[in-house]
């Protein structure tokens, strides 16, 4: 029997807006706390994986030196084309599942004002180069504003439906003392917020923070009887097309392929999900993920969400129960994984979903998608 990969421990440092520290210091603290959470120690670690989307992100080998790990049997610095920090989580899980590592740690530091990621190498730089001629536009944000409008064209959805996601994030964040943005938002405040790139508003954008996250993934037999969460399935997808602005599936990017692949592999299906942690770098992305995962009928989010009650505290399908990246803060998916694990352990206190036994976590958008199906045991 192939040993399963489990999430043995997680940690989040911050998120906060006040005292920026060196990214390596935050990330190192996150790794140490995640190991303590797992009941493991630094010498147990034989794999380190990180998502390096900016030039100052600490590398896996720097973390090795900081922690004092004599040798690694697997490591990786996953670059800008990955599915946010989930790229590192997936790489760590794959290392464990393949037998390359017994205990692999994924980590990532978050910065309020990260240095520019620069232009990715190769043909994918075409989007950056094209966009640069038009002014201070960013590829992901521009593509999201255009997707919101295209969704209105094709499916008749009011872009204001994104407000339900922003309001939901604030409702959950109000119950989560980790959250960096705890101002309660209502639909009127959302509708009155600054237009960044019409139809995209300020409250559609994730909340920049300083901090870090870490996830410890281990072979099931290594962690023994300690409480862990099983990785039931994982999946990644790029979808087809050139990139973000020129992806073939403009409304959903690679989310539908990623979700389809996840459910082919998982032991449970969308109807069995107790809690969802879906990527919300922009609120639109959360809607696309919920629909791609089959948690909500395609193009029906605005009605399905029942004014927000459905995904809020006490709802049928609680979503982004930490406040997500919109309100807990932009931890590059590590906050979402941390929250999913805490939910399945029943450790969430005021934002706990009673009896949560299954969770789905998704990351990224456009051509950079990944997802995890998690369960207790």
């Amino acid at each position, binding site marked *: 029997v192939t040993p399963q990969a489990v999430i043995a421990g997680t940690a989040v440092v911050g998120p906060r807006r006040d005292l920026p520290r060196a990214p390596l210091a935050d990330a190192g603290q996150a790794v140490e706390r995640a190991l303590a959470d797992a009941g493991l120690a630094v010498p147990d670690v034989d794999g380190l994986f990180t998502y390096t989307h900016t030039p100052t992100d600490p590398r896996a080998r720097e973390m090795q030196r900081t922690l004092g790990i004599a040798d690694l049997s697997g490591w990786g610095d996953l670059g800008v084309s990955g599915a946010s920090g989930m790229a590192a989580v997936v790489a760590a899980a794959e290392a464990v599942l393949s037998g390359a590592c017994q205990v692999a740690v994924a980590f990532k530091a978050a910065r309020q004002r990260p240095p520019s990621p620069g232009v990715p190498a190769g043909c994918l730089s075409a989007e950056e180069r094209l966009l640069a001629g038009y002014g201070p536009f960013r590829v992901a944000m521009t593509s999201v504003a255009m997707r919101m*409008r295209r969704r209105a064209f*094709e499916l008749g959805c009011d872009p204001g439906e994104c407000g339900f996601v922003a309001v939901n994030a604030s409702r959950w964040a109000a119950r989560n003392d980790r959250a960096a943005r705890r101002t309660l938002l209502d639909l009127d405040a959302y509708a009155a917020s600054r237009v960044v790139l019409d139809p995209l508003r300020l409250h559609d954008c994730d909340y920049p923070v300083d901090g870090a996250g870490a996830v410890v993934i281990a072979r099931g037999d290594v962690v023994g009887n300690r409480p862990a969460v099983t990785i039931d399935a994982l999946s990644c997808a790029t979808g087809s097309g050139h990139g973000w602005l020129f992806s073939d599936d403009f409304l959903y990017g690679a989310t539908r392929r990623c979700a389809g692949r996840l459910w082919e592999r998982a032991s449970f299906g969308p109807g069995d999900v107790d809690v969802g942690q879906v990527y919300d770098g922009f609120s639109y992305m959360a809607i696309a993920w919920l629909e791609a995962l089959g948690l909500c009928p395609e193009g029906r989010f605005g009605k399905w969400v029942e004014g927000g009650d459905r995904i809020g505290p006490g709802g049928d399908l609680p979503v982004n129960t930490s406040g997500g990246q919109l309100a807990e803060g932009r931890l590059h998916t590590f906050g979402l994984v941390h929250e999913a694990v805490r939910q399945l352990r029943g450790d969430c206190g005021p934002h706990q979903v009673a009896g949560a036994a299954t969770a789905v976590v998704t990351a990224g958008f456009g051509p950079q998608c990944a997802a995890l199906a998690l369960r207790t045991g």
Partner: protein
Amino acid sequence: MDAYFTGLAAGRLVAERCQACSRLQFPLEGRCAGCGDGDPLIEVLSGEGVVYSYAVQPGRAAESAEVVLALVEAVEQPGLRYLGLLVDLEAGDLAPGMPLAFRPGDTDAAMVAEWGPAGGWDVT
């Protein structure tokens, strides 16, 4: 992408045409992403397109104008999309599938594509 900017400078909108599968492609990649053929030819398009989607950047100050950045689908092939500025059009009047015509434009940073009302100007 150099051929794209050279084309703009000469007033032309170009795509890559795959010699093996005949597919048109943009952005230019030097290789057909549909069939993998490595030798696509540069082809000049008609400069006719339709609105696919757009986003509006509000004016930063009272006197600065809003910028309407669009994705425009070329009439030559479904899914063949271009980025460009919408000019001489009111954002409120825009609708999906609305016909547009291309012309080269210039910003401080680079040559860009502009799209205005079909028949609104002569395309050379």
